[in-house]
């Protein structure tokens, strides 16, 4: 494989990893606060739909982004209400979110646009265009690093850089701020946080809303940067791969970036080698590579290689009087 196609694979790995990264960070916030969220998929899907519809109506990508964020946060609040206020089963609530999102986007999309559930294609200012970072051309003369910077680091949409910023912000907030410390504590031992006079529900709601915002970012990216409008079921399981990445990253921000880039790379390679025989091993079925993230997660969770331990209080509703 020559340098040009290697860079192309790396570039598409970055692009494919961004929705995973957004959903993975969303899951990280939620689960670190003790709320299990398997509704990442659904929240990304409603965000993608809202972003596609709003961008089509207004012609503005930013309006699309805000609509995406709002739709995703609305669904996140439903999850928060049932998981935090009503102390319902968080897995069941997540399943409900996914079903509602899949059904509602298809129904409403079909009723509004009569295009089999998709939103009308958008372009120009209604999409997030590619941004060329400063110096991309000037530095491209440097061997290896120059093209790497131009092809892989530069030339993505605003949302990609926002997602990377979100990694830094997540790490810094959780590791270095009072809010982050309390949030982590609430996911490990909510009773201790409650005893200290800090609202368990308040912290968990904050985390759930942040998860909604991040899923909104991921969904908007799918509809307005990767594609040109919403397509039915366009999340295609990314919210679940993000859960796998979260387990891989052991609920930490920087490893989450690594895991999502790895899964994005697998995806990019799978697309690349479809039908192409490789040296030594011959033709590798594309499904084998597609199955790898799921298989690796199962192996990791089972503790055959390493051990992934979730936050201690995740999935358990907090009951004050006990």
């Amino acid at each position, binding site marked *: 494989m020559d340098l040009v196609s290697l860079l192309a694979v790396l570039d598409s790995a970055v692009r494919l990893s961004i929705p995973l990264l957004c959903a993975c960070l969303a899951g990280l916030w939620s689960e670190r606060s003790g709320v299990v969220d*398997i509704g990442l998929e659904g929240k990304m899907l409603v965000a993608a739909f809202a972003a596609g519809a709003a961008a089509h109506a207004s012609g503005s990508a930013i309006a699309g982004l805000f609509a995406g964020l709002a739709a995703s946060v609305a669904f996140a609040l*439903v999850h928060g209400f*049932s*998981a935090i206020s*009503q*102390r*319902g*089963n*968080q*897995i*069941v*609530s997540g*399943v*409900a*979110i*996914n*079903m*509602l*999102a*899949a*059904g*509602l986007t*298809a*129904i*409403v999309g*079909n*009723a*509004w646009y*009569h295009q089999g*559930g998709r939103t009308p294609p958008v372009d120009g200012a209604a999409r997030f265009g590619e941004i060329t970072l400063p110096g991309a051309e000037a530095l491209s003369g440097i061997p290896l690093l120059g093209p790497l910077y131009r092809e892989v680091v530069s030339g993505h949409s605003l949302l990609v850089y926002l997602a990377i910023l979100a990694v830094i912000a997540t790490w810094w907030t959780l590791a270095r701020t009072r809010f982050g410390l309390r949030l982590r504590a609430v996911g490990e031992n909510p009773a201790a946080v409650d005893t200290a006079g800090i609202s368990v529900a308040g912290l968990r709601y904050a985390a759930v809303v942040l998860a909604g915002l991040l899923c909104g970012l991921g969904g908007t990216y799918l509809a307005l940067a990767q594609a040109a409008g919403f397509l039915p079921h366009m999340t295609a*399981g990314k919210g*679940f791969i993000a*859960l*796998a990445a979260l*387990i891989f990253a052991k609920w930490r921000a920087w490893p989450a970036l690594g895991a999502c880039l790895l899964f994005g790379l697998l995806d990019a390679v799978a697309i690349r080698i479809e039908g192409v025989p490789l040296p030594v091993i011959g033709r590798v*079925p594309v*499904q*084998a590579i*597609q*199955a790898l993230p*799921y*298989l690796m*997660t*199962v192996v990791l*969770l*089972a*503790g*055959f290689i390493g051990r992934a331990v*979730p936050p201690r209080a995740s999935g358990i509703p907090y*009951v*004050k*009087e*006990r």
Partner: protein
Amino acid sequence: MSTPIDLPRWADVILVPALSVAAAFAVAGLVVAGIGEDPFTATRLLIAGSLGSVEGVGFTLYYTTNFIFTGLAVALAYHAGLFNIGGEGQATVAGIGAALVCLYADFLPGVLLIPAGILGAAAFGALWGFVPGYLQARRGSHIVITTIMFNFLAATLIVYLVVNVIGERGVTETRAFARHAVIPYVHEALRALGIAAPTSPLNFTFLLALAAAAGVWALVYRSRLGYAIRTVGANPSAAVYAGISPARMIMVAMTLSGALAGGLAVNELMGVQHRLLLEFTSGYGFVGIAVALMGRAHPAGVIFAALLFGVLYQGGAELAFDMPAITRDMVVVIGGVIVLFAGALEGLFRRLAARLVALGTGFVAARRVRTAEEG
């Protein structure tokens, strides 16, 4: 819940699910009204399409068959305290099992081949349920995450097999099963008896589904094993004191759950499609979660809920002719709302039911006092 709400049994069994289903239909009605259609006309068309003709009833019961199997699969695991959302994957792998038997053992006569195909489906589905059960019981991995991953693994596995190994060249399906591997249609049997019956996909797998429901009932409520499973579900530490191994019960429940999900493959592939094709599970596994929650994990409740979803599925398909804006995705929405109301927000509806019951008993008591004073 911090304080369990005590309800009379009738309220627990009927009032709570009825309230959440009514609320779910109210939400669905709002969605229908929101996209500019009349919910009452839609309901009328839906009922007419699903129950208004013999043909409609045939289709409805065919869908009901699928929902009974996936609902029972979720319900049985639920009794062991497990949330099996791997019904899709288990049914997919069960389809591979059924297809392998029907394609490569078709030298057997029909009386042996059909049971062998059903057993093949059950065995493969059971395997796909057993592995997550084993991983939960012995390795401590969370059943929900593992079953999600197994859904995706099953989806890639079937694509690989059908495209590269057992499928026909150029199409994403296998060759048709032999004629004697096919489970007969009900309308064919009726016509053989001289009764005119319209064509529908309803086949004798429906009776298998009812038998499975009876079997699950006997197992869960009338057998030693079922008692052990329920004990583990209610309180694993108490089960240990009673000499029951939670790990074993988890594996047993997940294995049986996977086998039940395999019934979906039997109905779809051996009953209707007569070949293995991709995505034949088409979301029945997920709706099964709604069916089990609405039926409160009781086989009778599951049959009732499955019938309701069968009506919605068939009625929804008919409805789409008259109101193109309402597609079958409406069923997914209703399923989602039922999962939310009957599952996640169960406490809210229990409290509502408790208030209604209190109001009712208060009213009765007040009237008794008044008649006593007057008399």
